[in-house]
């Protein structure tokens, strides 16, 4: 998923899936993250950075 907006205080990010769906994602395990970064998300939690593959 692609990071759109980050709420660092609550360790959450608004992300967009490839199909355009938006989802709030827990980012505590991969923080810090920035908008436009790609994250691997499982069950609502980001577990890895996607390494720049678009």
């Amino acid at each position: 998923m692609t990071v759109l907006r980050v709420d660092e205080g609550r360790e959450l990010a608004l992300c967009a899936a490839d199909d355009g769906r938006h989802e709030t994602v827990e980012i505590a395990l991969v923080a810090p993250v920035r908008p436009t970064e790609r994250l691997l998300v499982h069950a609502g939690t980001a577990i890895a950075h996607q390494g720049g593959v678009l």
Partner: protein
Amino acid sequence: VRFVDEFRDAELGRAVAGQILSLVEPGRHYKFMEVCGGHTHSIYKYGIDDLLPANVELVHGPGCPVCVIPMGRVDDGISIAHQDGVIFTCFGDMMRVPGSEGSLVDAKAAGADIRMVYSPLDALRIAKQNPDHEVVFFAIGFETTAPSTALTLKRARTEGLRNFSVMCSHVTIVPPLRALLESPDLRLDGFIGPGHVSTVVGARPFEFIPADYGRPLVIAGFEPLDILQAIEMILRQLDSGRCQVENQYKRVVPYEGNLRALEVMAEVFTLRPHFEWRGLGFISHSGLKLSDAYADLDAEVRFSIPGVRVADPKACQCGEVLKGVIKPWECKVFGTACTPERPIGTCMVSSEGACAAYYNFGRFAREREVV
């Protein structure tokens, strides 16, 4: 390659398939297990096995989270769901897994308040919105989803939620692999290692496979080129007499895994002495439960559950499929009595299940064609 389309490029795929063909010894039969259900899905979605030489066989492993949940565990969930004042939450796939007297969908139809969620955080939100109900999350999955459950439990603790609990059925990937390697039923030449589990656990936990069992393992991504390249890397190891853990999925998987995820899991979970896997039986230290520090959020402590072991239906051969002993189409009920619409076994429920992958991508009762 940088763009996901390139990982699906047919020409590049055929080129890697050509390298694979040049590495296989004529007359030798190779059996590689793809551990992860996500790989099984990709293999059949993209027709990867059709690009392989006839003497390279892919065997489907136990890495589909829904497929390995035993019937008794489903019965336990349904038992909690039927208790007064309970809102029972679970992932969508889990809703259709058959228990001994029906699935969670059947229980919902019978009046239980069962809700599908995409994440344990959704279940936590339901708990906040319904303070007069007990909200239970049925947690399943390997080390990919366990961190999400762990973080949710930490949030529940921080926010002081008292009406939320977790029925923990998380499992770990290494013990079943060891069990499979010890099994006399199966002779494997190498493993395509799980890509997403490895983002959390890293590559190190798989080092026992080459060290103790002399089999190579290559951690792979989920695009067609990832899987083909992983097969080529395994064959290259065999060809050169090497045997080690390699990481094809370096763009996502760090060798040491996600240390923060491992830390939070270690805080929230502890290993069960043993846990039952569908088709594989009881495997020592393969399941997670909540640690003593989180026992007050453990649904198994908070609610009474039957906890009875239930044998699979006689017609269902999910066990043999999960061990890689038979192909899905060799099961007596595949595609007839057991379909994705009306599954008898778990492997037909989830899109990551081997039977569902075969069924959805048209692999009905046929041998592979020779390339």
